[in-house]
């Protein structure tokens, strides 16, 4: 494995120093130009969609998870119906956003989310997925050997704890509530939110221990 300790089969975007746009960048521009020319969408609609995605980040998911840790009633609503519960936190949630199903890791069962067909991910809450989530390596291995993949993220799951893989193939996106770390009883909701990493909401890692959380 790489020094990041997670599966990769492509380099990070932005590491290439080429001034010329790559194949996919040129293809996307050509596609966008064709869609605009045919009146399917406008340039400003594309820009707005990009802008809305850029506004969201794992910190937003972290706030939702921290609220669920603090408030059992909220957690019950979140597990029962994801989108309205996220909207309760003040986020703009619309009908055209995919459904959100929220699951909770326990001592008995923990989850790992993958999209084997493409890269389905709760973008409207967490922003763009990490590169490893889209890699062929992760997508093909997570379903066959989830425990090995989790181990490569530093997570040794006890054999008595079940592992359930969620392959999101359609109109539903999945979010994992990681287990609340021990030693966090006195923390505020904002402090708790900082412990919730992107990887932990995919199920590939635990939430941070409080002494490891960055300020």
């Amino acid at each position, binding site marked *: 494995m790489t020094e990041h300790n997670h599966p990769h089969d492509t380099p990070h975007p932005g590491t290439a120093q080429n001034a010329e746009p790559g194949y996919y960048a040129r293809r996307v521009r050509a596609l966008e130009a064709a869609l605009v020319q045919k009146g399917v969408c406008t340039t400003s609609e594309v820009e707005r969609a990009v802008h809305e995605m850029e506004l969201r980040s794992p910190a937003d998911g972290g706030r939702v998870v921290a609220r669920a840790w603090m408030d059992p009633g909220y957690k019950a609503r979140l597990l029962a119906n994801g989108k309205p519960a996220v909207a309760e936190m003040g986020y703009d949630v619309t*009908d055209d956003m995919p*459904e959100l*199903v929220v699951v909770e890791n326990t001592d008995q069962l923990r989850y790992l989310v993958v999209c*084997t*067909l493409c890269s389905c991910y709760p973008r409207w809450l967490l922003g763009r997925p990490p590169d490893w989530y889209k890699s062929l390596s992760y997508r093909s291995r997570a*379903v*066959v*050997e*989830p*425990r*090995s993949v989790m181990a490569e993220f530093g997570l040794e799951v006890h*054999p008595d704890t*079940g*592992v*359930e*893989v*969620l*392959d*999101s*193939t*359609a*109109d*539903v996106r999945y979010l994992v509530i990681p287990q609340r770390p021990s030693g966090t009883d006195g923390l505020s909701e904002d402090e708790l939110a900082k412990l919730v990493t992107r990887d932990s909401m995919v199920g590939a890692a635990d939430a941070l221990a409080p002494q490891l959380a960055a300020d």
Partner: protein
Amino acid sequence: MPQIATAPQRFNPGDHVRVRREAPAGHVRTPAYIMDKTGAILRVHGAFRNPEAIAYGGDGLPAMPLYLVRFNQGEIWDSYSGPQNDTLSMDLFDHWLEPA
């Protein structure tokens, strides 16, 4: 939201289902590795316009019921190396399922 044409929901949580093996040309939302496998309905998500028709400019109607179906890993992979009660769940549209 306006009412849209919806195919009947044929399955309920707990029902055992088998995933059809088919290889239609073009866009499908059912990965090959799950075809012919038997699982149980875990959750009914509701009905969604069929993405396999939308992909070709269709309206995706009637909307198809979408289910979360749970499989034992040992049922999917002969060589699964983890505990035999590990599971995998996947969203599958009604037309890919038959009673098992």
